[in-house]
């Protein structure tokens, strides 16, 4: 694959090559010419090619695209769970080369731990992330109160002591959101977190998600295939092409906040959804 070696040109890497080097960028998150190749030898797959992305602190962006286009891979690249084959990823002024700390993540599966109660699951990040980790033993009551307040804000009051398998799918997803947010991360990664839910629950959780974001303004990257969800929640929607994944459209959503279900019937909202849908149809056909 000669094309790959071109993509891995040194131009992308010389600017910040030292480990954990301070990188000059006005953005909170910046991806420069990021390319990712899966596999080895003949089985190589070019998953993502020359991706560029800039986010300011507190931005809420959504990434949409046909399935298998590398949307989920993107979240792993930004959080450092997966090293890029070429290119530079900068988060908070530092080049990402290992998993970055205190990111909140929520996936399509709630991935709660069945051996813990709901409260225990939500409090898990506090046992790992500093400074909470060392404070937890002395200030346990304070943290429990914080976790319970968070559970209350997503409508899970009274479920703290329940085991996660006693919760419905929507409730598990709420608990998963709480777990992603309890340690007040600056960066939240949502990988289709509402995809497995019924329409009513999903729309309810959009509203909860928006409220949480409006209160705390963590930087958020939402990966989804639901265009209405993307337009409802995000400030900017990026459309990704078929593999190899590339951004083919960037659409700002200038609808006022807080958005409500009523907003989704606003002609401007519908126009944006249509525009995104057309673009995705286009890249799918290509």
């Amino acid at each position, binding site marked *: 694959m000669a094309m790959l070696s071109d993509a891995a040109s040194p131009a992308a890497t010389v600017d910040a090559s030292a480990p954990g080097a301070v990188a000059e960028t006005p953005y909170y998150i910046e991806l420069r010419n990021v390319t990712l190749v899966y596999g080895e030898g003949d089985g190589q797959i070019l998953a993502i090619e020359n991706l560029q992305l800039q986010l300011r602190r507190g931005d809420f962006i959504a990434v949409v695209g046909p399935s298998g286009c590398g949307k989920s891979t993107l979240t792993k690249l930004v959080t450092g*769970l997966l090293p890029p084959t070429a290119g530079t990823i900068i988060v908070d002024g530092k080049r990402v080369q290992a998993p970055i700390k205190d990111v909140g993540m929520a996936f399509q599966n709630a*991935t709660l731990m*069945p051996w813990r109660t709901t409260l225990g699951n939500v409090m*898990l990040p506090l046992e*790992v992330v500093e400074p909470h980790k060392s404070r937890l033993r002395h200030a346990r009551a304070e943290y429990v109160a914080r976790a319970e307040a968070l559970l209350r804000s997503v409508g899970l009051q009274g479920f703290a002591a329940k085991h996660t398998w006693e919760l419905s799918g929507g409730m598990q997803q709420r608990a998963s959101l709480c777990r992603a947010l309890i340690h007040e991360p600056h960066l939240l990664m949502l990988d289709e977190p509402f995809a497995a839910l019924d329409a009513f629950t999903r729309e309810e959780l959009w509203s909860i998600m928006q409220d949480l974001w409006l209160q705390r303004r963590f930087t958020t990257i939402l990966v989804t295939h639901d265009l209405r969800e993307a337009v409802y929640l995000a400030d900017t929607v990026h459309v990704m092409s078929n593999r190899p994944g590339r951004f083919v459209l960037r659409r700002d959503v200038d609808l006022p906040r807080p958005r409500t279900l009523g907003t989704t019937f606003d002609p401007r909202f519908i126009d944006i959804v249509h525009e995104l849908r057309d673009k995705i149809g286009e890249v799918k056909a290509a």
Partner: protein
Amino acid sequence: MTGRQRRIVRQVLPWVVTLGMLGIWELVCRVFHVAEFILPPPSAVAAAMSQYHAIILDNAAWTLLTTALGFGLALVCGVLLGLAIGASTLVYSGLYPVLVGFNSIPKVALVPVFVIWFGIGTVPAILTAFALSFFPIAVNVATGIATVEPEMQDVLRALGAKRHEILLKVGIPRSLPYLFASLKVAVTLAFVGSVISETVASNRGIGYLMLAASSRFQVALVFAGVCAVAIMGIAMYAICAVLEQRLVYWAYRSQK
């Protein structure tokens, strides 16, 4: 049937089955006039048990001790090795084939070797019990850890968790149901190991007692020894099952 009746039936059923089998056994022996030195009826076994109860108890206690020691050793080593194999692909690829090879060896063949090394008696029995029960524990713990959902690991890795933290928070709890499933197999295997070793090379324990009794054609006493081993096996199994219910009830939620 109400729920309560069903529960009572469930508790009584094993006893009914056991007594029924003993009854058939007794009947067959009497109807066909089976000689006692070929197959003694349960009544003769019971008589032998009461007549030789002191000897049986003494030897059973010895067997229980060696089995427990071998099993405990297998538990510690099996869990540690299982953790290492499950957590590291390098250790896995290096050790797994060796383990499989080791497990294919008939353990009885090892007893004479143990005797050469450690002499007749307790140590070969402990080691044979260990050798038989170690493998299922290691494999199951390794499986539990190796099959942790990658997303669950990602949640922790994205929080900046170190490898030992991921192992502690996810890997170990996740592998507990696998561990207990293996313990129930391993504990019975441990008895097989210690009794075999006692039969081949020992001067104490149920295995030795059975061998001595059979050489004197006291077949009822042999069967009494078999019963003693079975009872101890069930008891150890029950202890494991109770611990399992206490510690990993969350893995059996669908049965609630």
